[in-house]
Structures are given as C-alpha cells and as structure tokens.
C-alpha cells in the first residue's frame, strides 16, 4: 500500500510544481526554492514527519524533503546544544543529497563528454 501512496503523494507534489511553472510562470529555480522553503516550514510545524510515515518515498524523494531534513538536523542538535546547534547540526541529516550530487557530478564530468 505504501507503494501506491508514494506514487500518489510524489505525483501530487510534482503537480504543484507544474502549476507553479505553468500558471504562475515561475522559473524552475524559483519553483524549487519555494518548494524547499515550504518543506522547511512544514517540518517546523510538524506536518512533514506524518507525511513521510504515510507516503514513504513519496515524501522523501521530492525536493521538499531537503528543507525538511535540514530543519530536522538543526533541531536534533539544538536539543543537545541549544541555539548554537541550529548552525552546527544543519547538514547532519541531509548530507546524502548534497554530497551524492557533488560526488557523482565530478565522477560524471570525468566519465562523460559534453554533447554538441
């Protein structure tokens, strides 16, 4: 059942992005930034965790989860070390997305040649 909800929830988040592209005529960079900020705020209010429990990868794969896990890491450290933890813990949880993108970006640049 979680496969079905992953499909539906993930698809719906993409539809929100598509509406921002087409109806509000935003650039992809604007759309993605807004979605990340929305993810951060949703986690701040505490609504993103239940969504992950409900939809699994449908909530962790869209870019909104990036904002969610940034807040999460910051909050985890903040509980231990107070306000300074907000700064030091920021990348605790979300490291995989950025490090994977950078690592595979460099590997891709070594392996593949640009086209055209």
């Amino acid at each position, binding site marked *: 059942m979680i*496969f079905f909800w*992953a*499909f*539906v*929830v*993930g*698809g*719906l988040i*993409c*539809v*929100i*992005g*598509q*509406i921002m*592209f*087409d*109806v509000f005529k935003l650039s992809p*960079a604007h759309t*993605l*930034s807004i979605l*990340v*900020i929305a*993810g*951060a705020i949703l*986690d*701040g209010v505490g609504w993103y965790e239940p969504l*992950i429990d409900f*939809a*699994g*990868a*449908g909530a*962790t*794969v*869209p*870019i909104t989860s*990036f*904002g969610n896990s*940034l807040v999460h890491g*910051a909050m985890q450290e*903040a509980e231990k070390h*107070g306000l300074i933890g*907000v700064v030091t813990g*920021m990348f605790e949880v*979300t*490291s*995989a*997305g*950025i490090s*994977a*993108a*950078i690592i*595979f*970006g*460099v590997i*891709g*640049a070594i*392996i*593949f*040649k640009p*086209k055209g």
Partner: protein
Amino acid sequence: MGDKKKQKLQPNQQRYQAFQQKREIKRPIFKNCIKAFLIGGLICFIGQLISTFYIYQFNFTEKTVGNPTVATLIFLTMLLTGFGVYDRIAQFAGAGSAVPVTGFGNAVISSAIEYRSEGFILGVGSNMLKLAGPVIVYGVFSAFIVAIIKTILTQWGGF
C-alpha cells in the same frame, strides 16, 4: 506586466502588448499536470522500491532509509544524464522530473559535464552548483529561521 509599467509605454507598445498576449500560445496546463503527476509519481515509486530493498537487505529503518535512497537515485541520475536520456524525460515531464531529487541531481551533474571544457577547477568546480545553488542557499537559510524560531519556542517558551 503590472499596470504601473503599462502606463509608461507608448500607445503603440500598449497595443502590441495586448496583441502579443492574445497570440501567446496557451500552455496545455491540464495535460502538463497529468504528465508531471505520472512521471513524478513513477520516480517516487522507484524511490520506494529502493527504500524497501534497503530496509530488508541492510537493516535501515524507515527513518534512516531516506539518505541512501536519495544517494542511489542521484547515482542513477548521473547515468541517465550522461547518456542524454534525462533531458528527454524532462522535456516530456516538466516538473515531474524537476521536483524530485533526481532533478536536483540532474541540475548539478549536467552543469558539471557541460563546464568540463573550461577545466576541472574553474569549469566543473565553480559552475557545478550554478543551477542548484538557489535550492541549497534558500533551503539552508529558511531551515535556519524555522529551527531558530522552533528552538526559542520549545526551550524558552515552555511549549
């Protein structure tokens, strides 16, 4: 275009604006949304398959499985981007392929490959995050604001 800007234009330009707006091709919004839903859903479905595999094979829990899933998806994106397949998917799917992390990965990896001709330090190194930069910057900054507010409320406000 806002009304204030419109008033500054010459009458001819105003007529041109109206003409251009009438002739602008209407975007097939509904069709685009369906495509985005299907492809975006499919990518998340694949993500769920990978997550389930990791949970049963490597003892990740549902909370910790997000990270390896994202890394695996970005690895797959590298292959698809390198062979030029991802661009074609993106043309069809619009936001369906841009909103999942694979779109973030694609933005990083495609600019890394593209700027390779300018050298590895000044080309790849400095241009890699050109497209993905705003996402990281505003993600971190908004997370900082949210976390600060939440910390102050929970630790000192007694909520």
